[in-house]
Each structure stands twice: as C-alpha cells, then as structure tokens.
C-alpha cells in the first residue's frame, strides 16, 4: 500500500482544471475495480480531490471510464 509522503501531484504541477476527457491522468487515480482512489493513498489535496472525483464521475457517465471493472 503506497503511502505517498506529502505531495499532491496536481498542486505540484499547478493544475487548475481537471478535465474529464483526460482519461490518461484520470485512470491513474482509478485502480482495478474502477474505484476512485482515496486521498490517503493517492496523496491528493482536498480541493483537487473534489475536482478529480467530479471529473471521474463525468467520465464514467460518458463511458470513458467504467463504473465497475475487473
């Protein structure tokens, strides 16, 4: 279980908008079973996590990401 030290990658890269179309990045935060990674594992900061979750859910709606996987 990777316990990322401190930093939020989005904060480090100064990303302001998390695009639901960017499934390459999004899928980094969706492991198997297509769940959304919790913050304590991914190390994402709170505001970015919220945006990330919303982007993931949108992507799921558009079938760019699965709801459940194997």
């Amino acid at each position, binding site marked *: 279980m990777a316990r990322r030290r401190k930093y939020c990658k989005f904060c480090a890269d*100064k990303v*302001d*908008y998390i695009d639901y*179309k960017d499934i390459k990045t999004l899928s980094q935060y969706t492991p198997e079973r297509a769940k959304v990674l919790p913050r304590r594992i991914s190390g994402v900061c709170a505001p970015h996590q919220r945006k990330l979750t919303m982007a993931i859910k*949108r992507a*799921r*709606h*558009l*079938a*760019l*990401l*699965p*709801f459940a996987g194997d």
Partner: protein
Amino acid sequence: MRRYEVVFVLAPRLSEEEVKQAVETFSGAAEEKGATVLNIDEVGKRRLAYPIKKFNEGIYVVLLLEEEAGAAVAELERRFRVTDTVIRFLTIRIDQHLKRADKFKDRREARKARRALAREAKPAEPRPAAATEE
C-alpha cells in the same frame, strides 16, 4: 457571456456523412438560438467502457459554444433527448472554471512578482507587500 462545453456520443453504425449531417444540424440549431460555436471536435469512434444501448463503441463529438444565458443549450439538450442516434450527452458550463483557473494563475504570477521584487530590495527587510489586488 457563458461558455459551454457540450459532449455527445452517437451510435457507431452511422456513416461519415450521417455524422457530418448530425453535427451540422446540432451546431446550426445552436447558432439559431444565438450561440457562437467556437469549436467542433469530432473525436471519432471509441470503445465504450461499458455497453450503452447494446453498443460497444460510440462516436464522440465535442462542441464549444458561447452565448448569453443558455437558450441554445436548452434547445440542444432537448434535441439530444429526442434523437435516437445520440446515446449520451453532457453539457458543462466552463466560463466559471476558466475564470477561476485564470484567477489562480494571476494570483500566482502576482505572488511571484512580489517575491522577486522583495528579493531585489536591499538587506533592509522589506515590509510584506500589502498590495491589495483582486
């Protein structure tokens, strides 16, 4: 001026011309209602993460529009719901997001500039720049 991003997915069995036609119809409808179409992106066929209406693939199209207060968007959504070939759609309002993103960027630039200036000042500790900026 509000900016919207509209994504819709068409059934995969459509031919090139049918797709072009559909895109024309929708973007035309938006313009009729007073929107300016800023960009059309036909992403093309993609595998769906899960079957929708028994299809496993879909044709994705992204529209970027600008208008006052959403009449065009309402019309587009109404049409999407009615059209059988549209199997998914999603409208997002992005002007606020872009505004916020720009605000953060501006804040950051301003902070950087302030710090750079402070550093250039002589050893006398400069007062923390109380520059009130929006």
